[in-house]
């Protein structure tokens, strides 16, 4: 007999509904799965059969054929265990096929017959809702994730036998409600706050401006000057994510399997901190069936690259597309996928291999050639996309030992949010949301400098022999500073002056 159920897999950052067709007929006993299953799906036949047996149900030894449609996409998800098991029971007459087609089943099965959580439930639930499914069956750890999608009835039976009884109408299951998340008791979460950073006023100001305008930052400083500490606090001053942004982030985390078990919406902005020996595929995403990389995991948050020149040159060049386009397209033989990557890039590096170049109290041991070789990897095009480039000096003892509390992240965040608000109003008609995204033409149109500012910029432009790109960058950062200053219509000379300071201080490419 034939039966059909619905399961799902993921493709890129989206869910893909899979129609699971099961036929069980007389003939040589066999269990074949066709329709491009991955190894995890192929192995599901062992889990399915054992789970059915250990649930006290019987499956007859017949010629069983399972087809996963659409047949041209490779299916990776172990969440197909449950639709296959239900389909098999329906095909052998144990369940009514018509009932089974009303649900979307997403769960892995244990040999015992318990439902297990799988990755990617949120994007699958979103797709299911869009395709008109009303009821979805998941494991208990996936309840909160599935419930993020409004208009879906979520059921989470504990095991296969409960589910079979439910489908038979023998027991009632009530739709799941949000589950409280159990925090281990006596656990104090350490929050990174700018109040902990002593000194470094210039760097803090630069990060505030970067957060306000979505600008990328390069910090150059001697070892131990606090570059990493500063970068880690960046997400604490970015405005709170909107629900839409939070859903995007949760979706990506869900697909990458990085969502903690049982959790729902991710509300903290991501902070990704890949090690410098990370491969290009790990950073930008990849694999035969492309999976998201660090630039995507940092979507709507911060990607921090410490020791920038230590990264592989190809990796650094590959960053250009996500920075520019706010998304990354990965092409493989099987398919081409686009992942979102709207990030603020924060880079840190030493000025030279020994680290002390430019410090007043230490002698740099590096030759000019050493320094050249060290910074050579940082190509002009990459540095061009980093609007703010600053030096982070060594902290003085007096500053360090001071017990004075500095301005907290939350009060900086208020200013940042206000500046973002101004930008949204100005830029939303161009489908942009922060100053860093303005193209050249738009800068000409909407960034007006007051005459004194114009004059100042001209002077610096001629004296430093700046490029057109550098000119644009100064204006963009100037615009953000003006927005932090209450959003004056014209950019004043003090704004331009600060913008110049934020990039000409250290210029590798000039």
């Amino acid at each position, binding site marked *: 007999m034939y039966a059909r159920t619905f399961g799902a897999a993921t493709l890129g950052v989206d869910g893909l509904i899979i129609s699971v067709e099961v036929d069980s007929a*007389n*003939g040589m*006993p*066999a*269990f074949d799965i066709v329709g491009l299953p991955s190894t995890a799906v192929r192995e599901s036949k062992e889990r399915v059969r054992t789970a059915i047996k250990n649930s006290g149900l019987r499956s007859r*030894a017949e010629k069983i054929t399972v087809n996963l449609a659409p047949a041209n996409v490779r299916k990776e998800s172990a969440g197909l265990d449950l639709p296959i098991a239900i389909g098999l029971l329906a095909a052998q007459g144990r369940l009514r096929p018509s009932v089974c087609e009303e649900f979307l089943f997403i769960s892995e099965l244990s040999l015992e017959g318990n439902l297990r959580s799988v990755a990617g439930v949120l994007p699958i639930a979103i797709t299911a809702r869009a395709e008109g499914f009303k009821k979805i069956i998941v494991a208990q750890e996936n309840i909160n994730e599935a419930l993020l999608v409004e208009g879906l009835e979520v059921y989470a039976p504990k095991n296969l036998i409960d589910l079979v009884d439910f489908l038979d109408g023998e027991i009632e299951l009530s739709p799941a409600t949000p589950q409280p998340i159990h925090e281990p008791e006596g656990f104090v979460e350490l929050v990174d706050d700018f109040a902990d950073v002593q000194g470094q006023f210039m760097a803090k100001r630069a990060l505030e401006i970067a957060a306000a305008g979505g600008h990328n930052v390069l910090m150059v400083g001697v070892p131990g000057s606090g570059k990493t500490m500063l970068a880690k606090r960046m997400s604490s001053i970015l405005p709170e994510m909107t629900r839409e942004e939070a859903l995007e982030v949760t979706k990506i985390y869900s697909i990458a399997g990085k969502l903690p078990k049982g959790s729902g919406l991710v509300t903290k902005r991501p902070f990704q901190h890949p090690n410098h020996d990370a491969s290009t595929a790990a950073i930008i995403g990849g694999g035969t069936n492309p999976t998201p990389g660090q630039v995507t995991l940092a979507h709507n948050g911060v990607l921090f690259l410490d020791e920038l020149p230590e990264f592989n040159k190809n990796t650094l060049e590959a960053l250009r597309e996500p920075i520019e386009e706010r998304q990354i397209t990965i092409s493989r033989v099987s398919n081409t996928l686009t992942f979102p990557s709207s990030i603020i890039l924060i880079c840190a590096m030493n000025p030279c291999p020994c680290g002390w170049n430019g410090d007043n109290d230490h002698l740099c041991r590096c030759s000019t050639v050493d320094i050249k070789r060290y910074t050579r990897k940082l190509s002009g095009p990459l540095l061009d996309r980093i609007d703010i480039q600053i030096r982070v000096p060594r902290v003085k003892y007096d500053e360090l030992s001071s017990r004075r509390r500095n301005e907290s992240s939350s009060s900086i965040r208020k200013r940042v949010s206000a500046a973002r608000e101004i930008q949204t109003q100005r830029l939303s008609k161009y489908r942009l949301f922060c100053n860093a995204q303005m193209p050249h033409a738009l800068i000409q149109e909407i960034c007006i400098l007051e005459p004194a500012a114009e004059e100042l910029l001209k002077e610096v432009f001629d004296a430093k022999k700046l490029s057109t790109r550098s000119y644009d960058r100064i204006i963009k950062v100037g615009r953000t500073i003006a927005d932090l200053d209450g959003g004056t219509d014209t950019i004043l000379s003090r704004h331009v002056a600060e913008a110049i300071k934020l990039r000409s201080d250290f210029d590798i490419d000039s």
Partner: protein
Amino acid sequence: MKTNVAGKLGEDCAAKFLESKGYTIITRNFRIRSAEIDIIAQIDDVIVFVEVKARSSTRHGLPVEAVNLRKQRKIIEAASVFLQDDNFCDCACRFDVVEIYLSGERVEEVNHIENAFEVMQED
């Protein structure tokens, strides 16, 4: 006791055992050029292909372990020839193994494993 004698003894014993469980024996020692099926029986419209393994000691493993992949393939091959027969071509079928534990010429224990193996998916 010679192996072939033990084998014959085991098969006779297995056939009797199956009949006592309500099976109808269709044929014994069904042979094609390269393979043989010890017993072909029927119960409730299911054709059962039975491989009998007799052992007097488990020094070289359990009897059922001797039905390895190669042996399974041969049995499946012979079974598909048998099923060409018009009378049986649309029947449900199953592959069983019957283990016979011998002590001298006495049968110690009979163990019937239903649905012991199935057709493998070729990759």
